[in-house]
């Protein structure tokens, strides 16, 4: 029997609760990660790229790296 069907008392098959819960957890983790990425991007762009040029300067890049580190530190 594959992990995607369950043998409930009623004899019906379908994803087991464990499989469903795992899928939900994975989807939530993915959604959180995407949201966090978006927040980091917004915050660090605002702080570090005050006058957008034709490319990111070295100081803008370093600022963005530090910003990401600090924001993660602030979140914890």
């Amino acid at each position, binding site marked *: 029997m594959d992990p995607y069907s369950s043998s409930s*008392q009623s004899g019906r098959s379908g994803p087991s609760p464990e499989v469903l819960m795992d899928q*939900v957890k994975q989807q939530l983790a993915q959604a959180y990660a995407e949201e966090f990425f978006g927040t980091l991007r917004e915050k660090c762009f605002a*702080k570090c790229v005050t006058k957008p040029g034709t490319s990111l300067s070295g100081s803008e890049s370093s*600022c963005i790296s530090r*910003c990401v580190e600090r924001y993660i530190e602030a979140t914890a």
Partner: protein
Amino acid sequence: MDNASLDSPATAELQSFLEQEKQRAMLNELVAKLTDVCWDKCITGSPGSKFSSSESTCLTNCAQRFLETSALILRRFQSMQQ
């Protein structure tokens, strides 16, 4: 709809799981909001390679004041509804 296909213990387990995940999501959202707001208030210049002590203090104070503000407003709402 055939309710026999919803095994009772499984449904209860899923409901309890969803409730737990909902709580976790709400807490996650609170932390994210708090960080968002306090970052804007406290990190005024360009981010450094570590927080200055005034930035650090500001972040701590901000988080606490934010939660207090939340509680205050909630109490105000509740008393308005009486």
